[in-house]
């Protein structure tokens, strides 16, 4: 590559990168200045933390964070249990009806939970789970994508290990827990990262199923806080937005490599 095209590439790539993070940079700018300083771009104006204070006092953020944390935990635990069992059944157990069952699971990849909001809402209400964290999480626990991922991971485990453990007198469930699960650790990690960031960011379904600050996750809380009816100004909204994305963003910047690997692993079959 010639020197010229290389510097041309660098300029283009960096320019696009700056455009791409500009919305975040502007939010940081707005969050640490008073509203009038922020919108008039007074570059030398003093910094302030009062927007964060005002945002924090404006809504029960602590509760929202806790709800989101509980939600992603409940979803992840549910998904691990359900997808491990089903993935193992599809990978290593021969039973009648297996192929049809697997086809039905794959079908769910296209029946998005987002699209079935009306009937899923009816189902959650019927189960008495309306306005509960379990109600928000439950439709996502039997993830077709997760089952598929676990099946792939368990298929790559050599059958000799399985047989050796059986000769040692290990029970079937014991083999699953002591042989297969530890060997699939990277898959679990990847799946966990994708799942946590998906459900941390999920909005439409939690909006429908939650109805009180006691269960509302951070995304729904943020949308209510920023609603124009509430007349909150741009600096405080920016502060609230940054606050609510901070945990995931910081985690991403620290574990960037793992995040990217996780998303890759999840997408490539």
């Amino acid at each position: 590559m010639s020197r010229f095209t290389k510097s041309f590439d660098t300029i283009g790539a960096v320019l696009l990168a700056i455009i791409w993070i500009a919305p975040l940079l502007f939010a940081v700018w707005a969050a640490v200045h008073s509203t009038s300083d922020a919108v008039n771009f007074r570059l030398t104006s003093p910094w302030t933390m009062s927007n964060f204070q005002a945002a924090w006092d404006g809504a029960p953020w602590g509760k929202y964070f806790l709800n989101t944390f509980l939600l992603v935990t409940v979803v992840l635990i549910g998904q691990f249990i359900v997808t491990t069992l089903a993935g193992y059944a599809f990978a290593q157990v021969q039973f009648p009806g297996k192929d049809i069952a697997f086809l039905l699971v794959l079908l769910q990849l296209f029946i998005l939970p987002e699209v079935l909001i009306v009937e899923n809402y009816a189902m959650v209400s019927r189960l008495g789970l309306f306005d509960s964290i379990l109600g928000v999480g439950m439709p996502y626990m039997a993830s077709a994508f997760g089952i598929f991922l676990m099946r792939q991971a368990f298929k790559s485990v050599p059958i000799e290990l399985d047989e050796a453990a059986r000769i040692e007198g290990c029970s079937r469930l014991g083999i699953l827990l002591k042989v297969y699960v530890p060997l699939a650790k990277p898959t679990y990690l990847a799946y966990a990262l994708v799942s946590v960031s998906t459900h941390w960011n999920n909005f439409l379904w939690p909006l429908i199923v939650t109805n009180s600050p006691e269960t509302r996750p951070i995304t729904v809380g943020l949308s209510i806080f920023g609603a124009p009816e509430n007349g909150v100004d741009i600096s405080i909204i920016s502060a609230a937005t940054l606050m609510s994305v901070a945990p995931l963003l910081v985690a991403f910047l620290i574990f960037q490599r793992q995040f990217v690997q996780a998303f890759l692993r999840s997408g490539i079959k």
Partner: protein
Amino acid sequence: MSELAKLERRRRAIYGWLLLSPAAILLSLFAFYPSIATLWSSLFSRGTRRHPVEFVGVENYTDLFADPTFWIVVKNNLFYAGITVPLSMFIALSMALWANSKISAKGFVRTAYFTPTVLPMIAAANLWLFFYTPGLGVLDQIGSLFGLPSVNWLGQPETALWAIIIVTVWKESGFFMIFYLAALQTIPEDLREAVDIEGTSRWTYTRRIVLPMLMPMTLFIGVNAVINSVKLIDHLFILTKGGPSDASKLILYYIWEQAFAFFDTPHAAALTMMVLLVLGIVAAVQFYFIDRRTHYQ
């Protein structure tokens, strides 16, 4: 011996279905039953105190077809897909080619491209609000430097859907870039070296070697982008609420509105059935192409 084999087979069958039962129950509750229930309720009228629920056949569907808003929403969503799918894929490919080339500041560039992916759509919408606000917003301020008048990007029908589209492209391009990056890294280095020795231009190399080798990945990303054009609507709640006068309303938002703002479940169900049909076609296309791909490999 055959008795024993039969017993063993039966034990395995029970064992397999036991392992599968949690997934089977949950999938039935939250995917299969709701799909059938949606179809069922799309064939009945909305019950009121005076008129109890009754079977109306395809009336809910013909109602929708006769409703101008429905066609506006369909047109909006087709436009939304028609722009976001190719545009985000093109940007993703450019990002990947850059992030994979030997430029300085590669780490920064990759991080910057990928960052929007980890943000919730609601937060993304809030960030962009600062750009779009008339008068005070960043876009207007930049415009005023060049003497352009203030524009109400979110408040006028001509620009509202575009404003929504830009946020979507911004959000998903970095995500698709990752997949292109992975595919690029599977292209052998020797091809590049051979091309350098031959003195072939970079453009020819990209067009004749890189792009064809990225085809399967392009298809995969394309399917995901189409699904996203149905799914990604959270920012509507912050930015436009589908307005002004339905100019930026998308199908999933319309379903939500019908069901949870107007409490018109039958029409929401009929809409949902149509979306499921479209997603089914997307699935069929994907399976068909993936089948073909595995055939000639």
